[in-house]
């Protein structure tokens, strides 16, 4: 059991208490290494942020490391309010609200589907449970692009193609393998005595889930929530493919704003647009990051 639990995706290693030590060659080496790693991300970020505050005239000079002079917020405002995605020039806010409209149904569906499946597989005697789990696990390795066209035909048969619900269902189904595994591993750690006691009190499948299991799953729910919010928000292909008309998520609108083949490029607006799109998942990390680590470690230590 503990083996399967170790398979839960650990994005950040748990923090170990540091011992106080003087400066050694080893610690210098580590510091230098970490500084290089940080620079690896920070230098491009610096360019993106400064470019977004520059005027196009300054950008045309071609010095990407210079500071923005004069400093202007126009690019940010234009990116949000008036950048063109096709013939509609209402900025990224259109995509932002579309993304919001996609996010909540997708989250609700995927969480509901995988938590219940994980719960059933972990705590109930389901026939062929292992075979089912194995198949699910295998499905996690099937690239979306391979099943895209069949999924389009299916969703169009279900009459959800081109709607928010189409996107939500596809998100829920595609995230099911990995999320189910996470939930199942977490629920496997719940002592059997709790389940036995609940059953003796004549709790039904749903009642035990809602009244006993769900209240115990706050940690893992937050982990899954963060994973899902990030992946749904950053998704491009599913939203593009199943969104059809008028439900293009922010990532697609961003692509429209930024990608140009034979048109002129407004780099300051492009950078501001990219940053605007990245803000929501970042906020989620800052706000819920603490719980994320807690949830991951709770899952890993239990059982």
């Amino acid at each position, binding site marked *: 059991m503990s083996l399967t639990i170790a398979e839960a995706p650990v994005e950040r290693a748990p923090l170990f208490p540091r011992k106080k030590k003087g400066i050694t060659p080893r610690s210098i080496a580590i510091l230098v290494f970490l500084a290089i790693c940080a620079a690896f991300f920070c230098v491009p970020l610096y360019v993106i942020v400064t470019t977004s505050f520059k005027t*196009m005239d300054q950008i045309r000079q071609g010095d990407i490391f210079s500071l923005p002079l004069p400093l202007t917020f126009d690019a940010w405002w234009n990116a949000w309010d008036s950048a*063109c995605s096709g013939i509609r020039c209402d900025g990224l806010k259109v995509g932002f609200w579309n993304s919001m409209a996609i996010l909540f149904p997708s989250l609700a569906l995927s969480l509901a589907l995988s938590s219940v499946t994980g719960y059933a597989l972990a705590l109930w005697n389901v026939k062929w449970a292992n075979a089912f789990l194995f198949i699910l696990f295998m499905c996690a390795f099937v690239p979306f692009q391979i099943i895209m066209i069949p999924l389009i035909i299916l969703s169009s048969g279900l009459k959800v193609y*081109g709607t928010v*619900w*189409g996107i*939500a269902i596809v998100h829920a189904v595609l995230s099911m393998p990995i999320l189910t595994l996470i939930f199942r591993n977490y629920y496997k750690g719940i002592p059997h005595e709790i389940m036995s006691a609940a059953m003796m009190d004549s709790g039904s499948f749903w009642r035990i889930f809602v009244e006993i299991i769900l209240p115990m799953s706050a940690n893992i729910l937050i982990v899954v929530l963060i994973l899902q919010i990030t992946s749904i928000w950053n998704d491009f292909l599913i939203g593009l493919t199943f969104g*059809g008309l008028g439900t293009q998520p922010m990532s697609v609108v961003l692509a429209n704003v930024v*990608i140009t*083949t034979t048109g*002129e490029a407004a780099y300051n607006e492009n950078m501001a647009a990219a940053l605007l799109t990245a803000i929501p998942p970042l906020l989620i990390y800052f706000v819920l990051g603490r719980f994320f680590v807690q949830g991951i470690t709770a899952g890993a230590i239990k059982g």
Partner: protein
Amino acid sequence: MQKRVLATMAAALLMGAAPVASSLAEELIVYHGWSSKSEVAALNVLQEALNAKGHTWKDLAIPHNSGVNVSLVNLVTGGEPPNAFVNSDPGVFRDLQGLGLARDLTDYYSEIGATENFFPIIRELSTVDGKMVKIPLFMHIDGMVYWNKDVAAKAGVDPAAWTSVDAMLADFPAIKAAGFVPAAVGGQAFQVGYLFHAMLAATAGPEIYNRLYGAEPDPAVFDTPEVRKAIEIVRAFSNEATPESENRPWNETTNTVIAGQALFHIMGDWMKGEWLAAGKVPGVDFGCEVIPGTKAVSVTSDAMGVLGGQPEAIDKAELDLVAAFVDPVVSARANQQKGSTSPRADASTEYQDDCNKAAMAALSVPNGQVANPFNITDSDWHNAIWTVLYDFWSNKSQTADDVIAGFAENYEAIFG
């Protein structure tokens, strides 16, 4: 819970059905990938023209510049295809025709008197397997010379006086001595490939060009003085490449000319959008001409197709859209916004600037146009040409012989 899931499913079904039922017959979905300022301005002209016919434009913008156009295939598969779609790849039209879509417009063009007014090269580019299926919207010339007049004055050279590419190259030392980069170049396979095919068309003419880029290339053309010459020109340009030109997009490359660091840039005339966005005026701040001594210009036609095979009212509306978009005045106005040139020889000259006039003149030369490789060349072969030339561009120790050997080797692999 199960009931709730069912209820959501039912709600989803209802929501899915609603937009389909409410769409009006005259609402046409126009699918394209244009979002930059000049492109949107051009689209607005087209939209106005469509509205004038009593129909409305439903916009669907998805960035796509790959020939295959996966999103279009997806939309058709999902049963929500756009009525008009931007695409130039003949393969996509063939696929759609296989599904009974992509309307043949040959008869309609004759009916509205458009056929004979398209430039001959446009007629050729709009035809797939003998049927005119494309609506030519914007015509671009793949290799035009745009120069900064201010820099030209400071360097004491006059690009307008160049009569051949050799005369252009002969001025390079003087320009460098004045402290400017003569030719702005971007080290990307696409830019090198475009420079080569534009130069080959300009210096060697249609016959050699079509033997290299035609659907069935002629291996005997590889080792000709003309092809060798075009390769040598590419080398001369690669020698001007500054370190920061590595992988520099064409926009930024053009901007080095706008900013006055380089004298000129040879690129498709879509770079006009960058100049206009920077507030520069054609003929005043910058000059434009086709490659000096041009024998033929390579032409790109940004085109649309219409679906066809729809209910009668929509079919009718789609034809109205075609008539609106190829109208000589609408076409001239839209092309003015986009920075391109109207595909109609009878387009109103009132909406043309100096650069358009240079382009129109080149298009009126008999037998002086060739089709952009994306329209005529086998895609593997085209890729191979790009790869060979980009290796040559990046590796200064390679010679024209290496390129010719590279062509022969790839020809063998693809067609052998």
